[in-house]
């Protein structure tokens, strides 16, 4: 493990060298991403190390760290122990419900559910260069938001692709101040998953519908949706879309949510809104937005979902 830590430090230094010509924010961003990746890969690396240790008879105490994985993936553990004494399980223990359901093949819908969760995760991870969709706002409030929370505030450009289009808009001082107030209330762990927000005047899809916002990086929000005569508050929309960024960077939390509240790809009981009943990702986003806006209402609607958010997301 010591060697692995040294390897991580070397990796970070190499990344820094490659970043010549970039500003400090980008360097820090890359470093944090590499560090995050190494951290996430640790359990898998550890399992590989264990495998070799077991194969070569180097019996050490590392197996104790795999207790969770062994306990929850009984089918797989039994298989591997029959084949050899090596523990080759590299499944994240947090994803045990989804995986074990697939392994037993009890229900084909479980396979569909797993695919859906992965689709949600990859959808949330979609990113585009910020310069394609906006320019950085020159408001003093926007600069303060970037300094304090690391979130880039962009004035949206006109753009169109095969499925959606948007018209240009600029943040107002009032909107930026309102946005900053929302950021202040969010837990750092949740807030830090988001890097950029773009304000668009309107967003349309090619079926003629008007989305309130688009997930991904940067998040895009519709001024029409949150403005006077709009249909959603800024805080609901912002927290909803930020939850998708949280999902992008905390995939296992979404997998756990789906396994608990969406077995067989259907909700065990209704989400807090109709829109939340479309899939597990939207369910979580709607419930987190409701938790932020009115925690007591969320608790009364569904104490289990409330508790899940409190323990796994709002920390």
């Amino acid at each position: 493990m010591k060697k692995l830590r040294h390897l991580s430090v070397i990796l970070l230094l190499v990344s820094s060298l490659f970043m010549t010509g970039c500003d400090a924010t980008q360097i820090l961003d890359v470093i944090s991403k590499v560090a995050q990746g190494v951290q996430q890969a640790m359990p898998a690396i550890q399992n590989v190390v264990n495998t070799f240790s077991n194969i070569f008879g180097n019996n050490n105490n590392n197996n104790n760290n795999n207790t969770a994985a062994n306990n929850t993936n009984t089918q797989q553990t039994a298989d591997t122990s029959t084949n050899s004494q090596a523990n080759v399980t590299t499944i994240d223990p947090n994803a045990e419900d989804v995986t074990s359901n697939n392994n037993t093949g009890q229900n084909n819908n479980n396979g569909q559910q797993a695919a859906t969760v992965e689709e949600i995760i990859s959808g949330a991870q979609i990113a585009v260069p910020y310069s394609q969709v906006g320019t950085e706002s020159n408001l003093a409030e926007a600069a303060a938001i970037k300094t304090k929370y690391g979130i880039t505030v962009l004035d949206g450009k006109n753009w169109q692709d095969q499925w959606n289009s948007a018209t240009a808009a600029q943040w107002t001082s009032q909107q930026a101040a309102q946005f900053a107030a929302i950021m202040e209330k969010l837990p750092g762990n949740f807030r830090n998953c988001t890097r950029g927000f773009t304000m668009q005047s309107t967003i349309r899809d090619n079926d003629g519908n008007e989305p309130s916002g688009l997930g991904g990086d940067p998040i895009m929000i519709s001024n029409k949706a949150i403005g006077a005569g709009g249909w959603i508050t800024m805080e609901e929309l912002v927290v909803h879309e930020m939850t998708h960024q949280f999902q992008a960077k905390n995939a296992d939390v979404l997998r756990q949510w789906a396994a608990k509240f969406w077995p067989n790809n259907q909700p065990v009981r209704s989400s807090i809104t109709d829109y939340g009943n479309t899939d597990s990702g939207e369910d979580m986003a709607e419930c987190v937005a409701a938790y932020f806006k009115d925690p007591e209402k969320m608790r009364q609607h569904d104490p289990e979902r409330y508790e899940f958010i409190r323990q796994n997301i709002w920390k």
Partner: protein
Amino acid sequence: MTRSSIFILMILFLGMPAFAMIRTLPFPELVQKAEAIVIASVDTQQVVSPADAKIPETSTIVKIEKILKGAIEADKPLQFNTPGSKDHVVRDRPRFPIPGERVVLFLVKNEEGSWRILNGPQGLWPLETGSDKTLGMGFNYSIEQVEKELAGK
């Protein structure tokens, strides 16, 4: 140069995100705005876009089983082309279940006079096989509630 290469490496460029949060219509408004509401079964489904298309397009043909609202020809199948496929799902767009399964469709006519689904995923409620329970954004409702709403109750 180094800077731009790293930038490209860091960003997975897939076009703009098809990850839109739609405006949910209140149930009475959904029923009222729909020019036709039907129960239909999925007949055939095939990907109609070229194999190398960035985002595939699927054509689905449904047969009308029951008309709940509107002047629509019951014996004429309806065809819908939607973004995505079984293996490449485009979220927040209407998503038909597999052939043989049934749906409730809330429809409006587009400018060309053909039918389109009202308000994306809100206008397509899959029905649970056997029970006819409405799923998706129809989870909290039922066919009976649609009928009651239409009857003005």
